[in-house]
């Protein structure tokens, strides 16, 4: 039982990171109708920035500073490369983000250098006893951060003027414009928020082991998460991310015993199996908006 619970906590810990990344994808998708493949690079840039800032200002201050920095980067990217493409096919924009991803990573790699960089987090691999269960402190930190971030996001979208404006713009841009919402600003804000979120996730990805040039790959785990949750749903992204983390963690821990015939490393495939199962039942994802089709 104890092992089951610690597997669950590990799954929820990593799942929280996937969820944060998934939310960042979804925020961009809702505003621009495009999946930004630059998110892995944003995450890597954020983690690297934290690794530089943690020394002088400490981890706790480094994370929000890095989030602001990467948010500014997101803003810049939106202004410089996405804004001029409005009205063009979203496919083109998606390809642009692919190019951006590579370009940003090449620059960030210079700052990462050849070694693994530490983010200076206070937890390392230390464990703590919670109700008789030994769990790594960083998993708890990840879960707490997800809760805080999601609560902040939901209240932002629910109660703040700008949150409402962004929701309106994502629902129907023209109507929002007519109502006096600055759709451009809403879009720019979404890219900035997504950048900041990716940076926070990156900082926590770096806990325990550090950041190196290949860390960006982790961000791709958010892709099955957003499809599972429904591309345009933030709740869906959270649930999808946590589901991916938990499923992966359990399959990694038990599949070798329970179903050895599936071969080694089945845990890597498990999020996609979950994705297929979900799509069979709900083609728009768990929380996705059903598209209206005229037949």
């Amino acid at each position, binding site marked *: 039982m104890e092992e089951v619970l610690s597997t669950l906590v590990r799954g929820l810990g990593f799942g929280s990171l996937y969820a944060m990344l998934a939310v960042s994808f979804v925020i961009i998708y809702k505003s621009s109708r495009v999946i930004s493949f630059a998110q892995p690079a944003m995450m890597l840039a954020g983690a690297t920035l934290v690794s530089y800032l943690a020394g002088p200002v400490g981890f706790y201050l480094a994370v929000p500073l890095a989030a602001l920095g990467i948010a500014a980067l997101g803003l810049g990217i939106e202004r410089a490369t996405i804004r001029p493409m409005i009205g063009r096919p979203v496919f083109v924009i998606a390809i642009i983000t692919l190019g951006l991803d590579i370009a940003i990573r090449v620059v960030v790699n210079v700052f990462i250098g050849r070694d693994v960089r530490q983010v200076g987090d206070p937890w390392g691999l230390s464990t703590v006893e919670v109700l008789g269960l030994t769990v790594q402190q960083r998993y708890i930190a990840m879960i707490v951060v997800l809760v805080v971030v999601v609560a902040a996001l939901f209240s932002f979208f629910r109660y703040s003027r700008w949150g409402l404006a962004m929701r309106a713009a994502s629902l129907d841009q023209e109507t929002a414009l007519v109502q006096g919402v600055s759709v451009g600003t809403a879009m720019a804000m979404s890219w900035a928020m997504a950048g900041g979120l990716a940076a926070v996730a990156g900082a926590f990805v770096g806990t325990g082991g550090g950041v190196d040039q290949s860390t960006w790959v982790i961000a791709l785990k958010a892709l099955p998460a957003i499809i599972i949750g429904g591309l345009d749903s933030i709740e869906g992204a959270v649930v999808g991310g946590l589901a991916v983390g938990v499923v992966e963690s359990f399959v990694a821990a038990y599949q070798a015993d329970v179903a050895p015939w599936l071969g080694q*490393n089945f845990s890597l495939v498990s999020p996609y199996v979950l994705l297929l199962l979900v799509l069979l039942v709900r083609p728009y994802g768990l929380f996705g908006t059903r598209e209206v089709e005229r037949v």
Partner: protein
Amino acid sequence: MRNTARRGAGLRRRRLMAVSLTGLAVLAAGCRGGGEDPADGGDGGGDVATDVGVTSEPCPDAVNADNGCIYLGTLSDLTVGPFAAAGPLIIEGQEAFWNRVNEDGGIGGYDVDVTEYVRDNQYNPQVTNQVYQEIKPDVLALAQTLGSPMTAAIVDDLDAEDIIAAPAAWSSLYLFQDVIVESGASYCAEAMNGVDYAVENDGIQSVMAIHYAGDYGADAAAGAKVAAEANGIEFTNVETTAGADNQAAAIAAIREQAPDLVLISTGPTETATIVGQAVAGGFQGRVMGSSPTWNPAILQSPAAPAFQAAFQHLGPWGPWDAETDGHAAALEALGDVQPNEFYLAGWFWSYPLKAALEAAAENGDLTRAGLREAAEGLEEIDFEGVLPEGTGNYAGGANEAASRATYISAIDPAASTGLAPVAEAYTGPTVEAYEFTGPCYEVEDLG
């Protein structure tokens, strides 16, 4: 500490003197032969037959303006691939190596240039083939081809064109590719030695290989399996993939089976995750890592105490702090750089190519075919003490060419790259008796 430094400095001075004396002798020999052989120290060319990648004009920024130029190409991972951090260091090591060759007068009246044709293979076979085709008309041989899938993409063409190449890896596959001039023991031999050493010193009863698929990880796992069978101990095999977040299954396997020895063949980040988490979870056994598993930055990570307690590193040659003539020469040529094993690798991987070029120049045939013939005829390569004497018998076939010595290091934060030698040129009974009949990972069935 200070004492060692002083001793090191003394040693270096003596070596410097030895090197200068050798240089003088070479110079004297060159002068004597100068009258008879116009190729010697003369107008670059002359009696030596050449075809592609060798010019009678001096190299750009030549050390010896009177010499001709031999161009060697480099296909390395410089920007976006997983070894983009290592590629530039390997190149720097290799540049330092050939620079010294040039400062010693070059080879057969030619300087060697390794800087003109450096291309980024992006760790992508397609790109590799493309940049290879670009530089092919201008180079005699390849001073570096990084990555097995990349090398595989061009090896048939290398073979057809008689272009020999120094690999930047230690797969046992290279023993069976004639145009590849490899150095150092393969991952396979290294793993055999690791298991033998742990049986001898720690009396282990079981070993678990945690490894990538393919000619790196599976090569090491195959070696571990052979050694486990030879020693009559239990062997289990866990395949894993890249990514610190993808190691949960490997860690679970360690926790469940609690082997006496875990032998890891992944990247350094994965190794740090596996070792850190396994030890944090109460694992008490020993851990060994193939040569690419170590990165000194691990010492700054939370996994550092676990590494110091349980980890031993297997290497094809001694680490930065090892004391051989080759190490001393490399360190002196590299100057004031932040210590990193990849610099040394670039240097040491270059010895076979130098030996082949010298042999070809001596035969008066610096054509591609001539160079290949010279390489295939090498019976011993002078590694300046880095590898045991008698290493590099390419003429005797794969089994004779295979290096079998492993340098085992413990983790010590005081060492330049964190590696402190515990056993030098260790050659266990398993590898001693093993006959290399094909790449280990193809010959041995991992199940």
